[in-house]
Every structure is written in structure tokens, then in C-alpha cells.
């Protein structure tokens, strides 16, 4: 059990709260830096995908987990980023500039989509973003002169002012740098007034407003930041696959993204990463498991969907805080051993919350 005595306000603001944080995160970064020499090429590619999805997940986590706005059309932002990157890279723009444009355009689209969020809430916002996702997918398919329509579009390797990042290792490091950068930005945001305003909106709009928080401005801001990160993720996704087509950004992708943050654990930055790890490794695990199952089950179509569905139901029922919530409990158990009590994480019912002012 660790007790932290705070003697200074900066201690409260610091990202690494104690030596343990410094040690473990340094170890994690070192491991990730050494990964190309440790794991096989195939798993390095999977790791790259995890990093890309983490960036997208961080954005969606900010929106859904910290601002309380659910988007069921997030693949559209991924798509906007991917197509912007593809078109600009093929036109010869260097990678950093193209990435900046991809993020900025996604953010702009995000602000437009954020407009209905100012009026509708909950399930209705879900429907609005869902239909937005369909519209964007349709645009990708129909705007053939730019997107190449359903035939898809090839994208060249990222070009850093003459330096071609053609190999898997180089691209992995690029993703790693961007993922770490995105994480730091989100962590900074969450420990500053902007992030707290998001949390305030999530927990009680009426009192956020009475504290002087401009709801419309902050909701739009959250949508824009979230979409920008999805756009950056989309750009990397396009480079990684080297080929994109509209059906990669359909509703299934959107639901995968939402699944990722819910299973990872809404309202935690770790959750975005844990969710990404889950999303990428689960199909591999299922593929491995197929061989062990009888053919009737193992070779049946829709096995992956079924497993995903069951896992999601399981999490919603037994662990609403997701993988990160489970980890917190395990950690507390180990820290307090043998004094852990069963009811420690039991949610207190709050029946005092008023719905009258909503």
C-alpha cells in the first residue's frame, strides 16, 4: 500500500504521481522501443495497428468517456482522415503536412457533426452520428473523381521531405511517436480547465452551466478534438494498409471503435489502449481457438461477431468499467492483500439526482 503525502501543489499537477509510475512507464516505453528487435514482423504489424487504434480510441474516449457524448459514426472521421491523407500524399505532399491537413479537415467535419449534439442527447445523438456515418460512407463511394469510388484508392509510402518510410519498422516508430504524443496531449487536457469542463458536462450539464461553462462551445470542442485524433489515426491506417475503400469505414468499423472504448473502460485513458489491444488481438485469439473447436462451431460463419457480442454483454453486465476497471480491482486486491473486501467497489446508488432540469 502506498501513501502519498502531498506537500506541494505541483505534486498534484504532475503526470507521474510517484516513483512507481516513472519506473513502469519507462519500462513500457523501452519495451516498445525495442519491440522491432523482439517480436516477429507479423506481430510488429499488429502492434502498429494497436497504436493506430489507440490514437483513434483516445479521441473517442475523450468524446464518449469524458464528455459523455456517444458517437456511432466515428469511422466517418477515420475515413475523412484516411482519404485526405491518401489524396494529399499521392499528390506529393510530405507526410507531416498531409497529416496536419487530415487532422484539421476531420476536426472541421467534427465541428459540423457536433452541431446536433448541442440539441440532442443520448440515443438521439447516437442516431444523428450513425446517419452521418452512412452519409460519409456514401460520399466516399460516389465521389469517384477523388476517392476512386468502390474500387478504392492506393496510397504511397509516407514521405518525410525526401525520406521514404517504406519499411514496417520505420512506420512502427512513426506510429509510436504519434501515439505517445497524442496520449500526452490528452493527459494534459484532462489535468487542465478544458478537460475538467468536459467532465463537468458529462456529469451534470445544468450545474456545468451554472459554473459558467459554455456548453455549446465545449461540446463542439470535444467533437473537434475527437475527430482530429480519429483523422490522424485514419491517416496512419491508410498508410499501413496502403489501400483504402469505402467499406473499411462502414458501420461495423464504427461499432468496433465504440466497442473498443466501452470494453477498455469508459472514462480512463488506459481504457483506450486496453480496448485497442483487445480489438486487435481478439481476432487472432479466435483464429487460434478455431483449430481447437469442433468444425461445426470453429468453421461456422459469424463466430467472431458472436464472440464480440458475448464479450460486450459480459462487460456491460459484470464490469461496466471495462478492462481498466478490472485491472484497478486486481491492483487494489494485490495492494491490500489480505484485506480486500468484496464490497469495496460497489457503486452507491445515487437516487438524489434530479432529472427535472434536463
Amino acid at each position, binding site marked *: 500500500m502506498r501513501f502519498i503525502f502531498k506537500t506541494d501543489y505541483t505534486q498534484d499537477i504532475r503526470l507521474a504521481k510517484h516513483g512507481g509510475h516513472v519506473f513502469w512507464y519507462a519500462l513500457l516505453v523501452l519495451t516498445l522501443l525495442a519491440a522491432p528487435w523482439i517480436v516477429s514482423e507479423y506481430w510488429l504489424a499488429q502492434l502498429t495497428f494497436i497504436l493506430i487504434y489507440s490514437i483513434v480510441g483516445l479521441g473517442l474516449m475523450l468524446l464518449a468517456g469524458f464528455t459523455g457524448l456517444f458517437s456511432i459514426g466515428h469511422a466517418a472521421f477515420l475515413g475523412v482522415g484516411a482519404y485526405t491523407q491518401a489524396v494529399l500524399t499521392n499528390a506529393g505532399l510530405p507526410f507531416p503536412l498531409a497529416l496536419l491537413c487530415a487532422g484539421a479537415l476531420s476536426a472541421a467535419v467534427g465541428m459540423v457533426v457536433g452541431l446536433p449534439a448541442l440539441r440532442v442527447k443520448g440515443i438521439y445523438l447516437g442516431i444523428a452520428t450513425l446517419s452521418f456515418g452512412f452519409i460519409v460512407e456514401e460520399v466516399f463511394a460516389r465521389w469517384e473523381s477523388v476517392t476512386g469510388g468502390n474500387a478504392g484508392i492506393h496510397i504511397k509510402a509516407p514521405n518525410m521531405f525526401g525520406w521514404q518510410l517504406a519499411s514496417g519498422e520505420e512506420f512502427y516508430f512513426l506510429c509510436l511517436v504519434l501515439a505517445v504524443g497524442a496520449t500526452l496531449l490528452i493527459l494534459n487536457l484532462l489535468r487542465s480547465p478544458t478537460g475538467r469542463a468536459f467532465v463537468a458536462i458529462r*456529469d451534470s450539464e445544468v450545474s456545468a452551466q451554472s459554473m459558467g*461553462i459554455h456548453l455549446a462551445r465545449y461540446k463542439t470542442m470535444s467533437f473537434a478534438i475527437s475527430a482530429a485524433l480519429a483523422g490522424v489515426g485514419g491517416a496512419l491506417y491508410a498508410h499501413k494498409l496502403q489501400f483504402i475503400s469505402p467499406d473499411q469505414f462502414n458501420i461495423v468499423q464504427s461499432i468496433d471503435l465504440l466497442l473498443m472504448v466501452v470494453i477498455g473502460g469508459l472514462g480512463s485513458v488506459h481504457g483506450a489502449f486496453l480496448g485497442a489491444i483487445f480489438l486487435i488481438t481478439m481476432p487472432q485469439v479466435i483464429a487460434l481457438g478455431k483449430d481447437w473447436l469442433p468444425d461445426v462451431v470453429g468453421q461456422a460463419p459469424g463466430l467472431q461477431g458472436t464472440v464480440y457480442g458475448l464479450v460486450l454483454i459480459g462487460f456491460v453486465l459484470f464490469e461496466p468499467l471495462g478492462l481498466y476497471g478490472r485491472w484497478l480491482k486486481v491492483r487494489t486486491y494485490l495492494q491490500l492483500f489480505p484485506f480486500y473486501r468484496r464490497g469495496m467497489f460497489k457503486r452507491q446508488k445515487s437516487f438524489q439526482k434530479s432529472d427535472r432540469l434536463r
Partner: protein
Amino acid sequence: MMDVLLSAKDLSVRFGGVLAVNGVSFDVKRGEVFTLIGPNGAGKTTVFNLISRIYTPTSGEIAFEGRKLSELAPHDVARLGIARTFQNIELFEHASVLQNLLIGRHTHRETTLWSDLFFTPKTRRAEVAAREKVEQVIELLDLQHHRESLVAGLPYGVRKVVELARALCTEPKLLLLDEPSSGLNVEETDDMVFWIRDIQHELGVTVLMVEHDMSLVSKVSDRVLAMNQGEMLALGTPREVQAHPGVIEAYLGSVDDVASLRRAA
């Protein structure tokens, strides 16, 4: 000392066929504790919601330091120096007490999105300064033990204090307290009396409150306005209002009612 901080003139609000507030006028003077009392459904909380711009009056006008509130958006009210608590506690449940209080500093925010994203020295300084201010409020209301706890796990009495603390963190000129003692035990209510006095005398904050506990009302209030069914019944010192025949009737029924009851028995 005696100038008017907030004045409501001929305030009415109608929800469909219900006239929730009807022609209510009152002035809150700088530095006083002004209490609204009345039976359930009298329109007290509606008056609060009119001041914090959650509702817009059907007719009439509220002015704060001479500025018309109807010209402002709901989130601008806090910037003028009006802070409030809610009848059914509206805290940010899944955040710590400290974070809740820091959100109370929002109107004093000096940083921008960009300086926040990169956590520049400016944001860092602002964060330290905000914590210093918050710590003063924590000190005043004895919340040190709960600084790091999540609001969702706190008992009702503490949440009530946290909400008061959050309102104080905005450094308001006018504090609206919606039933500060509801759900508190005797001891906690006594603490609340002390704190309201401290807020009035030491911090110099004007308090407008809705309250049912008459002992608390008579201990802290300078003036009391009694309402019934959206209308004003009586305005004066706590003693005057409690003795007012209309107030007694609204709470206990009229002499005729009592007489008819007696006949029935």
C-alpha cells in the same frame, strides 16, 4: 452596505396553464441574508431557476448590479458573480472533490485550449493558483479529509458541503442556496448556520436562500419573503413574517378550516 445587489420586478413565469410565479418583486441588498420560504410548490425554486437563467420569465425583469439578466446566456450568469447550489445536489459524481471545486474556478479561467493541450508554464501557474484558492475554501468548510475522494462515494451530508464549497470557489457576490439544510442531521445543520454566517460576515457574500427549517431561517436571515402558490405573501424580518396571518394560513390552514374540522369532530 444598503445598496441593492439583485432586484426582481414583477416576475411571472407560466408553464402551460400553470402560473408558477406570479408578480413577484423583491430587492436583495448587498451583504444581507435573504430567505424565501413557503409551502411546497410555492415557486421558490422557480425563482432560483429564473435567476440562474434556466428558465426565462414570461414577464418581469431581474437585474443584478443594474444589469438585466434576461440579456445573458445561462453560462454568463456565473461570470457576473452569481453562484448556486441545487435542491437535489448536482455535483460532478465521477470526479474527485478537488476536481469538483476546481471546476468552480472555471469563470476565472485564463488559459486557452492550446495552452492546456501543451500544458504551458502559463497553464501550470494557473493550476497552482487555482489550487491555492480552492484550498482556502477547503479550509473554511473543513473538507480536508475528502479532498481526494470521489463524490459518488461520499455521504449525503458531505456532498451538501461540497456543493456549497464549489459555489464558493467561484468567488461569488451572490450565493443562491437551495435548501442548504435538507437531508442534514441536527449537528450538520448547526454547522451550516455557522458557515452561512461566516460566508456573510467574513467573505462578505450576499446570500439568497430557500429554506424550510424555520430555526435555521430565523438564526441567519436578515429578511424573509414568504410565498404561496407563486405569489408573495409577506416580506420582512423573520419574526414579522412568522407572525403574519397569511403565512400562518398558508402553512396551517385558516381559522375557518379549523372551525369546520372541529364541527366535524
